[in-house]
Each structure stands twice: as structure tokens, then as C-alpha cells.
């Protein structure tokens, strides 16, 4: 199941996509935004799994920066304002596409996303991630954890991203509460 963000300036296209996606399986939550600022804001807060972005929108940050705001599994689909050539990439849709074409492409993406996700869902935190989580919950910084576990800060950060994605908990105090509830750390540890 995927959270979808439609980033499209044209009111008509946006509304059209909303109504199409509302009828499509696999969409849990749907948001739409038209203004680059609102798009940025929604990207950060909503953390979508699939983003339908009109390729003509001038975003205030680079594409790489956009990617870094999202989780690893998130993917982009580009809305193109012209008809598509024969051999266009699978993640391009055009405002000229027929309903069937659009439904076909969007369902495909949603299915693909679901299959990557389902594997994840049965997957709990790995022992490594649990170890990192334990240290985070005990109040260590990324740098301290890196030194303690002989890994790079970068690795710690990427583990933390995965932990947050799997648990749906972002803040350190939230992670601490989770760890206490699940016995990863004990009350005495933090007093």
C-alpha cells in the first residue's frame, strides 16, 4: 500500500489524477499540491511513497536534494505536458494519455511498490538495527554510535533511516519509548 503525492500545477490535471487514483487499488493516502512551496512542505511532512511530479514544475531545490528528503523506496513518476514518444520510460505519463493507458501505468507502479514493500513488512528490525536503536534510545549521537560500533557515521544514518521507516517513529524520544515498550532498553538504563 502506498502514499501518493500528486505535484501538478494544472488544476484540471490535478483533479483528474486525484479522481483516477481514488479508484485505483493500493493507494492508502492521497495528497495533491500545486505550488512548489506546498509541494516541498508536503514532501517533508507526508513522506509519500510515490510522487507524481509534473516535469515542468520548477522546484526550489535540486533533484538530488528532493531524493534525499524521501525514503529509499520512494519513487517518482513524471507527468509530461506533451504526448509521449513510442519508447518513453515506464515512469513517464502524459496529459495526453488515455484513461486506460494511465490506469495501466499507475497500477503497475503501485504493484511494483507493493511487492518491494511486502517483503519489508514481514521483516522486523535486523539485529544490527536493533543494536543501533538501542544506542539511539540510550541517548548517543550518530557520531558516538559510529565510534562505538566501528562503523561510519554515514552507515549509522542509513540504519536510522531504515529504523524510522520500519517503525514509523522519527524522534529520539519516540524511539526511546518504543525501545522501552519492547524491552530493547530498560527503565534503569536511562535513569
Amino acid at each position, binding site marked *: 500500500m502506498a502514499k501518493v503525492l500528486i505535484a501538478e500545477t494544472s488544476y484540471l490535471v490535478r483533479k483528474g489524477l486525484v479522481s483516477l487514483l481514488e479508484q485505483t487499488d493500493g493507494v492508502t493516502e492521497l495528497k495533491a499540491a500545486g505550488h512548489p512551496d506546498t509541494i516541498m*512542505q508536503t514532501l517533508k511532512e507526508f513522506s509519500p511513497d510515490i510522487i507524481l511530479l509534473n516535469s515542468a514544475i520548477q522546484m526550489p531545490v535540486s533533484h538530488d536534494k528532493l531524493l534525499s528528503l524521501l525514503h529509499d523506496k520512494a519513487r517518482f513518476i513524471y507527468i509530461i505536458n506533451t504526448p509521449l514518444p513510442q519508447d518513453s520510460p515506464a515512469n513517464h505519463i502524459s496529459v495526453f494519455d488515455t484513461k486506460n493507458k494511465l490506469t495501466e501505468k499507475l497500477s503497475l507502479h503501485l504493484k511494483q511498490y507493493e511487492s518491494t514493500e511486502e517483503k519489508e513488512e514481514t521483516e522486523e528490525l535486523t539485529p544490527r538495527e536493533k543494536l543501533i536503536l538501542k544506542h539511539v534510545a540510550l541517548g548517543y549521537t550518530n557520531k558516538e554510535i559510529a565510534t562505538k560500533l566501528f562503523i561510519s557515521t554515514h552507515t549509522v544514518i542509513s540504519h536510522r533511516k531504515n529504523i524510522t521507516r520500519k517503525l514509523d517513529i522519527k524522534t529520539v524520544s*519516540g524511539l526511546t519509548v518504543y525501545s522501552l515498550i519492547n524491552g530493547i532498553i530498560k527503565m534503569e538504563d536511562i535513569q
Partner: protein
Amino acid sequence: MHISPNTKMSDLVQSDFELLAVLQRLKIPFGFKEKSIQTICREEGIDLNFFLNLARWYHERDFFPGETLMNHPVKWLVKYLRSTHSCYIEYHIPRIEEEIIRMESLDRSGGHNMQLMLKFFREYISEFTAHIQLEEEKIFPYILSLEENFEKETPAPEFLKTARGYTIKDFLDEHSDIEEKLVDLRNILLKYLAPPSDNCLFTNVLIEIFRLGNDLNDHTILEENVLIPQVIKMEKDFHNKFPR
């Protein structure tokens, strides 16, 4: 429904009761009788377009309120945001806290989970209060004096000094995310805790946390995408009008 000046206020609320929050924050009293939006706004001294823009945004959720809302005096928006703050501090937050306290007292599981939730929420309250205090005591007064002094022939000397050493952009950079922790609390309750004995209470706490979260989201959008851009523009105009 399309919201127009002639729409009856009571029809508006009946079609979308979430708009009651907007009315409350604009301090519009009940007892609408058959009065239209236009009439009530006139009676209450609220600019009609300001009301329509806010109400349409909350109701339709489709357009970015920035461009339209930015054309009004900044003090109206500040007033609105302030009244939203007191709504959080005086009502929503204490209410959720009380409910968590009740949940804790009903918890017979023998564990400490509800106690943890309470501790977590109280931590949140202090962060939340600090966030709002900063806005109420520093940011909003700055914005109001900026607007006031901009309209003067010559700005007050102390304010001129402040204005030359400060920009609202500094605030934007450190404007913290007051929703994050609340979302965590919600997810922990939803995903990792078995409800204590009173299910109805548990569900209600969740509903209230969801509501507050959505409301805070709107609040942040008004602050970051309307208020601050408007102030940035006003700062520019101010420095053009009163160059060094």
C-alpha cells in the same frame, strides 16, 4: 459547496462543521439566525475577503492560501494565529493530557506503558509551550511593530535598531516541527500498544491526537507559507523605505 458572501453562516457550518474551528478563532459568536457571511463579518469587524479566503482554504483544500491571504494586513493573521495558540494551550493539549492520565489510571496491565506515554506527552507539552512562547513573546511582537513602523513617517529609533539587526528568516530556519513528536505518539499508540481496559477512551485519545495533528499542520502552513513570506516582503519594503 461554494462559499460566497451571501451564503448563510449556519449553512456553511452545516455543510462542513470543521469550519467551526475557524469561526471560533476569529471569535465569531454563535446565534447566526438567518444572517449571511457578509453580514456577520461586517458586524464582527472581520474583513470579508479574509474570512472567505480562510474558509475556502479550510473547506476546499485545493488552492495554496499564500497568494490570496498575503494581501491582507499581517496583524489579522497574527491575531488568528494567536487565537489558535490559546486554543491549543488552553483546551486541546490539557484535554489530551487528562485523557492519557485517565488511561493510565485505568491501566491494569501491570506494565509501565501508559506511564511512559504520559511522560512522553509531558515532554511534548514543554517543547510545544516553548515553541508557542517564542512566537507569542518575540516573533509576533516583532512582526506587529514592523507593520506598525512601516506605516509611519519615521520609524521609532529602537525599532529601527532592531530591524537592522534582525530578519524573520532567522526564525524560519529554526522554526521547529511541532508535529513530529505528536505523530510519533500517535504511531506508538496505534501500532505498538494494546489498548488498556477502556477502549472508548483509547480510541478517543487517538482521534483527538489525529485532529490536533491535522490542525497543527494547517497552522504551520499559515505560519511558514503565508505569514513569513509576507513578513520577508515587508522587511524588504521597510528597508527600501528607510535606507541606512
